[in-house]
Each structure stands twice: as structure tokens, then as C-alpha cells.
């Protein structure tokens, strides 16, 4: 029993020694590929498998359809990615989405689309600020804090908004989300390039700014970061503010794309946003993750739902496969690296 209880990760050097040389070098090569590309490779494999089953699936239109579905999930999961990277989690994403979407619709009439958009993002920032302050200053766990915040927002949504009035969606929002545009000769919904640009900007911020890098440090070793003189609380609060703003942005995008809003419009993103982040290769313990990976994770999940729809297996099987994929991904690299 003594030998079997030692986690595999505690013997890093011992593992490849018994294997043939070729396998070790392949593994070495594999470890050099950034983690965020794995979900993209998995997506391509799934896309090809789909093509083998139904050859008419290998078309640009099919790809764009899946990618559009994926980018909406990805946009809703960007905030979650930031929260997970800094060793937190944001379970207030669903009702942040709903609250900001409804706030946007409610404020369009008095303030115009731009004012309403700014106000919606501001509500997200305030929600994130409250989450961050409670977590880092009061020391409540992120799960509990954001669940309580999610409940509080649900109450606020039901109390504040008059749903029957919130039906008019401004043209300018439609133009950047659901409107069809032609990009390099490919017909696509405007939300796809919007999401990709957002992904690019966020990835640059995470990879190349000091603040972005500090999120990873706080996520992987908060105590070390504190001893190293980083303002951990401030970085963490900033992370939650960004997470809230991104969830609010997702709310506005979702209301623009689906052209309807309700109190429970964010509910399905509670688990699926975390799923996209996990499938995208982020560590649930923090310190590892990327928005490119999250887009890859969302693409994998979206391609599964395309395949399930084409094969007529039903929505239940889709959920089952999501679960199996998450299990596969975490068993590949979900183990805690240090005990």
C-alpha cells in the first residue's frame, strides 16, 4: 500500500525511465506544445470524425455555425477563466449575465445604446468588486461568496426589472452580434469576429502585462506572492472586477444574439462556463489557464453538440458526453501538482 499511495506526480523523474526512448522524446515534445493548443487539436479531430460520419459536415458553413455557438459560450466563460486562473471560481456568472443584459435593455431608452452598454459593464464591475472585496478582505471562500452573490443578484433581478417593458433591442447591438457580415468571403454572425478580437486582447493582457502575469502568480502561490511583495488583495480584487465586467459583456452579447432576455437566461452558463474553462486546460486550483484554451474548450463542447444533433442522439446524450469529456481532461492533467 505504501508504494501505491504515493501520487504519481511526486516522482517526476522516475516516470519516463522505464519507457522506451522514443516514447520519452515524444512526451517531451508533447510537453513543449502549449496546453491551450490541445483543445484546438481535439476540436480538429472531432471535426474530422464528424466529416467521416457525415461528409457534408466538412464545410465552411458547418464550421462557422459551430464556431458561432462556441464563441458565445467562450465569451460567457472568459470571466470564469480569469477567476479560475487566480485560484478562485465565479459562480455568480449566470446572474451577472442576466442582470447586465436586463440593465442594458432597461437603460437603452434613457441613455442610448452606448450609455446603456457602459452602465451594463459598470454593474459587472461593481458585482466583481463586491465579490473580490468579500473574498480577499473578509476571507470567505470564493465558492460561497459567489453563490451568495448569485442569489442576491437573482433577487435584485426579480425586484428591479419590469420584464414586459424589456423587449426592444437596439439596432446597434444587433449590428455587432447577430447581424450577418461577410468576412473574407465567408458569411458569419458578427459575434464571431467580436469574440475572437476579445480573445486576442485578453490573451495579450494575460500574457504580456505585469498585472496579467501577477494573476498567475497569485493563483499558483498566493503566500509566495505576498512574501514577494505583490499586493495580493488588490490583484485578486482586480481579477474579480475583470471577471464581473466580462460576464456583464457576455450578458449584453447574449441578449443581442438570441434577442430575448429573462430572469433565468444565464442559468445554463453556471456549469458550462466552468466546463469550458476546465476542458480548455486550466487548472481548477489556479495558476494555469488561458482564454485561447477556453475558446478551444468551448469549440470542443460545441462540436460535440453539433455531432449529437447530426446523429440525432438527443440533448441528454450531449450532457453525458460533456461529463465524460471533462473526466477525460481532468484525468489527463487535473491532478494536483504539489501535494
Amino acid at each position, binding site marked *: 500500500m505504501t508504494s501505491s499511495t504515493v501520487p504519481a506526480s511526486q516522482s517526476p523523474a522516475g516516470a519516463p525511465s522505464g519507457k522506451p526512448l522514443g516514447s520519452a522524446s515524444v512526451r517531451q515534445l508533447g510537453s513543449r506544445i502549449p496546453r491551450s493548443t490541445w483543445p484546438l487539436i481535439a476540436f480538429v479531430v472531432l471535426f474530422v470524425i464528424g466529416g467521416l460520419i457525415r461528409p457534408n459536415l466538412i464545410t465552411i458553413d458547418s464550421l462557422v455555425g459551430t464556431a458561432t455557438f462556441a464563441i458565445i459560450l467562450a465569451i460567457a466563460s472568459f470571466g470564469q477563466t480569469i477567476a479560475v486562473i487566480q485560484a478562485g471560481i465565479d459562480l455568480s456568472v449566470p446572474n451577472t449575465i442576466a442582470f447586465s443584459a436586463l440593465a442594458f435593455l432597461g437603460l437603452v431608452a434613457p441613455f442610448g445604446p452606448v450609455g446603456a452598454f457602459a452602465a451594463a459593464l459598470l454593474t459587472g464591475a461593481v458585482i466583481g468588486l463586491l465579490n473580490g472585496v468579500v473574498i480577499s478582505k473578509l476571507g470567505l471562500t470564493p465558492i*460561497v461568496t459567489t453563490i*451568495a452573490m448569485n442569489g*442576491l443578484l437573482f433577487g435584485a433581478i426579480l425586484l428591479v426589472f419590469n420584464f414586459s417593458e424589456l423587449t426592444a433591442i437596439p439596432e446597434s447591438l444587433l449590428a455587432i452580434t447577430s447581424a450577418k457580415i461577410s468576412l473574407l468571403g465567408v458569411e458569419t454572425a458578427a459575434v464571431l469576429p467580436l469574440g475572437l478580437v476579445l480573445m486576442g486582447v485578453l490573451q495579450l493582457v494575460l500574457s504580456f502585462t505585469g498585472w496579467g502575469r501577477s494573476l498567475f502568480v497569485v493563483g499558483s502561490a498566493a503566500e509566495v506572492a505576498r512574501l514577494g511583495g505583490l499586493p495580493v488583495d488588490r490583484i485578486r480584487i482586480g481579477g474579480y472586477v475583470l471577471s464581473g465586467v466580462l460576464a456583464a459583456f457576455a450578458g449584453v452579447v447574449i441578449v443581442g444574439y438570441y434577442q430575448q432576455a429573462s430572469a433565468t437566461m444565464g442559468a445554463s452558463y453556471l456549469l458550462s462556463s466552468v466546463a469550458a474553462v476546465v476542458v480548455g486546460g486550466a487548472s481548477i486550483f489556479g495558476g494555469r489557464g488561458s482564454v485561447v484554451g477556453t475558446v478551444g474548450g468551448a469549440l470542443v463542447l460545441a462540436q460535440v453538440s453539433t455531432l449529437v444533433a447530426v446523429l440525432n442522439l438527443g440533448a441528454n*446524450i*450531449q*450532457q453525458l458526453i460533456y461529463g465524460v469529456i471533462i*473526466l477525460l481532461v481532468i*484525468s489527463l492533467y487535473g491532478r494536483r501538482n504539489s501535494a
Partner: protein
Amino acid sequence: MSVAAPARILRSARIPRSAGITRLRREGAIAPITAFVVFFLVYVIINPELLTRFQLQTAANLVVPLALVALGQLLIVLVGGIDISIGAIMSLCNVVFATQLEIVPVPVAILLAVGVGLACGLFNGLLVAYGGLPAIAVTLASAFIFGSIAREVLDRPGGGITKAIYLATSGELLPYLPVSLVWLSVVAVLLWLLLQRTALGRHIYGVGSNMESVRAAGLNARLTKLLAFGLSGMITSVGAMMLAASTVTGDPRSGDAYLLSSIAAVALAGAAFTGGRGSIIGTVLAACTLGLIGNLLFFAGINSYWQYVISALIIFVVVGLPVVWGRITFALKGRRS
């Protein structure tokens, strides 16, 4: 007996007076118990009718499923995990119970539902304890899996729950004594005996508070974790059956709402999410508080949508206040309290 049972826990804990209070304090139960007493007094002042037979029964049926699921969540939290799939386990047991009642005798249906709960718990437990995977990620995956199986078993509300089953779980045993409270007390007392009076129970607390020490002491930490998950699944299935019976229907989405509220109840009970700290009585009373806020507002003539806001504020205050209080005393006395 229902009222006597939790009271007995308190009394027996109080016999060595300081020790009992110390234990409740160490388990973080003082704040939720106080919150419940305050809440209960306010409730009875606003709505003395609570103590009538019908209302007592309705209120009990409302909170008992939540209290049971919260106890299931508490077990996982005690071993340092968290169960995202608990709502899906509840939905699955709920529909298994409701559909099997149409085919097999009642005791078999109960056994099947408990068995399914146990199997779900062991599935999670095996992956967490022996697979070395993080509980939050494993249960996220199994939330999708169990939820999809639940909708495969029964895709819309239905099932064969009869009036007799309703009366056996949600009626009255004696005047002023709802049966559901009796069942809750039985489960809570058994669980309390298990946690406080058996080696397994002490190991569960031990695994959560210090995994390494438990392992160094030669105890089987993995088996303990596995058993905690299995036990949690069984308790959740009892909650699922109580819910199915009190609503007289099986519903594949009935458990969804209990995911967040079970975690909220455990948080309000003062349990530590790093594991090793949390009390049964605190969890049951926290679930009662959270479950009855909507009712209280209704009787107070306040828009019941406020219940979501007030629940959240209660959690922030009850969980956050000890931290702030600790900071203040630390600042005043200049030492850790």
C-alpha cells in the same frame, strides 16, 4: 420526538458543559444556532400561526429535503471536498424512486433509490480518493452525467407516487408532529452518532483537517474519503425521496435548485471549506433558516423576491462577522484570539 431529538443533542453536549459549548464553537455552530433562534423568534412574532398544525407541517415539508441534502454536502465538505453533482444526484434518486414505484413494491423502490445515491457517491468518491482528482472537477463532470441519466429515466414530471407515500413522509405522526421532522431527526441523530461516536466519524473529521497526519498515523485516508462520499450519496437520496413524496411527483430537474442552496446552508453552518470543521445541528438549523425566509416574508407582507437578497445577506453577515470580530479583537488586544 422531533423537537426532542436536536434538543437532546444539545443537552448531551452540554452535560460536560464547557466541553459541549467548546465543541459547538470549534465546529462553528454558535453563529448559525444564534441566527436560527433570532430568525425563529421573529417568525413566530410576525406569524404566530406557524405553530398551528397545518403550517407546521407545510414548513417542515419545505425544509426537510434541503436539510438532508445539506447534511450530504456537509459530509463532503468535512473531508475537504465539495459536491457540485449533489443536485444531479438528487434529481436522479428522485426520478428513480418515482418511476420504480410504478413497477416494484415500496421497500424495493426505496432500496433502489438509496442504492443509486450510494452508487453516485461511490463513483465520485473513487475518482477523488483513489484517482487523486480534485473533487470540484470530478463532481462538475458527474453533474452533467447524473443529470443526463436522470432525464433519460424520466424526461418530464411524473411517476407513481401515491397518497399513502405522501402521508408516510409528509403527513403527521401525531398532532403537531410532522412525520418529515421525525425522518430528518432519525437521519441526523444516526449521522451524529456515526460522526461523534465511531472511529470512522473521527477519521472523517481527521481527513479533512489534516490529511497528512491521518496518513502518517497509519489510517486509511482514501477509504475514509470514499465512505464519506458514499454516505453523502445515501443521505442525498433520502432527501430526494422526501422531496418526491412531499411534491407527489418525480421531476428530473427537482434537484437543480439544491446545488447552490445546499452549499449555502453548509456555509451558513460555519463549516470550513478546507475540511475538518462543521456541525450537524448547525447545518440542519442553517437549512431551516434559509428554507423558511420566503415563508416569513410572505407572512410579513413583503415581496417574497426579497428572500434571495436576504439569504445572501444572512450568509455574508453570519459567516463574515466572526472574521471581522476576530480582526477587531486582534487590533484591540494585539494578539490572536
